[in-house]
């Protein structure tokens, strides 16, 4: 009984923290129909500013809160002004990609400045516990509850009784009408981003104090949790976001009580997937709304792909094929092998995100499924490595499509959230399903690649093998794009309502795209597993998903040759310029942002 009360209190406190993030997300979604993937990064920045204030400047608690809120708000304003406002009139995919890029850049900056090692963020409150009924409650719990309630009250007063608050509500209801009535939408956006960032930053600081620890992994978790809470409450619905957050906190707390800590996130993501499938408009909005107005802009930037003559492609492939015959270093081959593996992943993602318009943020999960399947097939069942890789591709195609299928009825940002969550679910299952995946220990001693009984151990043979596999996959995908399936995928991307009215089943064609794309990604993961000889649950992480997305944007959405050019560029250029590894991710994020802003069609154009 007492522990039950403890779990309830804990759930409500954690829910309060989620609410601070989710309310900001809901405000932003309300006025700009945008899910701000950078919200978690602001939360992270808040935690570290809190650390500076407490540990370095020794500020008293009230001042700490103010410092964090103001500093985070400034970050939010900068994001709005320089990251998003320039994209106001661009295609719908642009702000989505921009917030992903911003989030990546911020996280990496924090990591570079403060190192990835966790830090202690001491609570500035006395460490006592009060008995309440059968449970206990500490001053920090009360502080979190107090901050949550105060923020909710302030926000309510702001939205209800101030002129700017009215403008925010008017803009959320009908942006165009508000503009025509003279509402300064830019000011509304600023206000909303400032408030959201201040709340997010304070929330990060409170969580840091609550667990007495902060690290850079907090960011993604916070974004995910906030988004889950917001979507559960109904996107853009501020009170809904609060209720969704408390519900999420309770579900997690009880879930952990029953099954253990390592399952905490699983509950959040399962809750998200269930809500998205059953009530995509959230728990508090009628599931049957008016059909959406026809969309005025297309999802991706219209452009004509650069036409590369066939002979030039042949020359390029032949050139790379004979490269190992020249005296090139092992290092060059190794770099290019990485590029070919990334190229396969890029092919997969460019089909799904570019041709089909499903911007997947969980693509690394497909690599992981392929890698684990291939590794286990060759280790446990002694399947030859060549066949095991194909098995990995098939498993990725089948399981990946099955797992992603709940997101088939979603659009735009929701697909990205769902795939992000599904990717996390896969990682958590790999971590927890020890009897099969060997859990956190990972799988070691994976045999090398082999073809027809010959081991492929020399770098040259691995190079040729991966180049050949990638070229075959690229040729198949090129052929796919010229078939009726290519035009069907692109039609669904451009306008799924018109596509359905002409007989295209979204489930059927999204499945086919994910089956094909899943195979390519699974093969890439399978080859990687045999190449590395050791894999664990962290080998294939969100960074790779984002890297693949950058590759796809760089090459041009849906562009087969572009995906390969993008891979070679993103893997090769940092090597050429000898950029230290820790700066690379930062550079990928900046490249993504610059592309979205200045060349959304990529190098070779959207197909």
């Amino acid at each position, binding site marked *: 009984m007492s522990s039950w009360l403890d779990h309830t209190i804990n759930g409500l406190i954690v829910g309060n923290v989620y609410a601070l993030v989710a309310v900001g997300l809901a405000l932003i979604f309300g006025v700009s129909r945008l899910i701000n993937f950078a919200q978690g990064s602001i939360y992270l920045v808040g935690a570290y500013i809190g650390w500076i204030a407490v540990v370095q400047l020794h500020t008293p608690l009230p001042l700490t809160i103010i410092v964090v809120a103001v500093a985070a708000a400034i970050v939010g304003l900068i994001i709005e002004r320089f990251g998003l406002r320039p994209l106001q009139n661009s295609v719908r995919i642009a702000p989505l990609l921009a917030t992903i890029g911003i989030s990546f850049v911020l996280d990496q900056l924090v990591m570079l400045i403060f190192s990835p090692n966790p830090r202690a963020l001491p609570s500035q409150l006395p460490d006592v516990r009060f008995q309440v009924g059968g449970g206990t409650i500490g001053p920090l719990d009360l502080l979190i509850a107090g901050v949550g309630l105060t923020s909710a009250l302030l926000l309510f007063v702001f939205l209800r009784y101030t002129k700017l608050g009215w403008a925010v509500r008017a803009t959320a209801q009908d942006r165009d009408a508000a503009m025509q009535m003279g509402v300064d939408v830019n000011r509304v956006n600023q206000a909303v981003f400032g408030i959201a960032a201040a709340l997010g930053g304070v929330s990060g600081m409170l969580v840091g104090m609550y667990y007495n620890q902060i690290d850079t992994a907090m960011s993604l978790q916070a974004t995910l949790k906030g988004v889950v809470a917001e979507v559960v409450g109904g996107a853009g619905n501020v009170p809904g976001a609060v209720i969704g957050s408390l519900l999420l906190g309770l579900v997690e707390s009880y879930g952990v009580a029953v099954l253990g800590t390592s399952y905490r996130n699983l509950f959040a993501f399962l809750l998200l997937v269930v809500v998205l499938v059953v009530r995509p408009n959230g728990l508090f909005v009628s599931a*049957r709304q*008016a*059909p959406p*107005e*026809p969309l005025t802009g*297309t999802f*991706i930037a*219209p452009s*004509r792909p650069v036409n590369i003559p066939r002979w030039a492609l042949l020359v390029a492939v032949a050139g790379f094929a004979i490269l190992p015959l020249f005296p090139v270093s092992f290092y060059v081959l190794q770099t290019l092998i990485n590029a070919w593996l990334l190229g396969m992943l890029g092919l997969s993602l460019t089909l799904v995100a570019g041709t089909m318009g499903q911007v997947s943020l969980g693509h690394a999960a497909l690599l992981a499924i392929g890698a684990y399947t291939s590794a286990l097939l060759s280790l446990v069942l002694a399947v030859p490595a060549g066949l095991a890789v194909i098995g990995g591709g098939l498993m990725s195609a089948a399981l990946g499509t099955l797992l992603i299928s709940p997101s088939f009825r979603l659009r735009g940002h929701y697909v990205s959230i769902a795939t992000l969550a599904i990717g996390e679910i896969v990682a958590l299952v790999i971590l927890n399903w020890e009897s099969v995946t060997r859990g956190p220990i990972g799988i070691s001693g994976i045999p090398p690649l082999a073809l027809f009984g010959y081991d492929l151990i020399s770098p040259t043979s691995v190079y040729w093998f991966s180049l050949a596999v990638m070229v075959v996959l690229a040729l*198949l995908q090129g*052929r*796919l794009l010229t*078939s*009726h*399936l290519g*035009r*069907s995928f*692109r*039609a669904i*991307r*451009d*306008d799924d*309502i*018109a*596509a*359905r*009215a*002409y*007989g*295209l*089943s979204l489930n*059927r064609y999204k*499945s*086919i795209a994910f*089956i*094909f794309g899943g195979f390519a990604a699974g093969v890439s993961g399978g080859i990687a597993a045999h190449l590395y000889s050791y894999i664990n649950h962290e080998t294939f992480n969100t960074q790779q998903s984002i890297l693949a997305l950058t590759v796809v944007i760089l090459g041009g959405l849906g562009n087969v040759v572009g995906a390969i050019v993008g891979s070679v560029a993103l893997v090769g250029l940092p090597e050429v310029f000898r950029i230290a590894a820790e700066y690379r991710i930062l550079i990928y994020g900046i490249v993504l942002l610059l592309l979205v802003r200045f060349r959304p069609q990529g190098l070779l154009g*959207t197909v």
Partner: protein
Amino acid sequence: MEKQLHAMLSLRGLTRRFGGLTAVDAIDLDLARGELISIIGPNGAGKTTLFNLVTGLDRPDAGTVSFEGQDITGLPPERLAAEGIARTFQLGRVFGNLSVMDNVLIGAHTRLRAVKPAVPVIGPLLELGLALLRPSRVRAEEERLREEVKAILARFGERLLPRIDQPAYSLSYANRRRVEIARALALKPRLLLLDEPTAGMNPTETAEMQGLVAELKAEGLTILLIEHKLEMVMRLSDRVIVMDEGKKIAEGPGEQVRTDPKVIEAYLGHGLSGTTEQESAA
């Protein structure tokens, strides 16, 4: 009675509410094979919502839709397309990044046979395999459809044929409307729903469009037409239905409907005494 037996499309008590607003209010309608019925009414009368209910983009709160004697209420749009119901959209929904050719080929999607075997469960896999391997049957089918698309585009004179490989986003507004109609025709529809096909067209273009719709009607196609240009409605329609605030307020031959006092009031009354109208309706 005769007409009812042969009705291709029958709506009975079709109703759709959005919150407190009844957008479509207990509409009955019978459309016979080969007939052309126009639906007119002020903006916001519920015409497009009615189209959405018939084509499965929206589901009714009450009432039934039957097509060729079969109850199709609430079926998904992709099923209805396969049944031979094609529509165009009021504000235009061409596939912007697809060429004119590909846009119209999507219209023929439900007629693909060779590449889309009707096999349960593994159907999608076979479709993927056939799309990649492309045996001669599949190539022949694709070739035949491409020729057909060219024939359909030729109906629009020189408007679309010279632009066949251009992406739809580069077309003029009127040409995008034409692509939509070409796409609908490629489905070889049994029932065609046109939602304001001449919106945004100048008088010459409107006359061309009117000529095309007249041709389609003469070929025996069954058509439901939403249109604001009354002259076109009067010339083409076998019957006219007038909607206002979700309700059918008049039905009959064009000339009769035109002089109906209720219709005149619906059109003029909104401008003159809109507020009192709404109050009395509430």
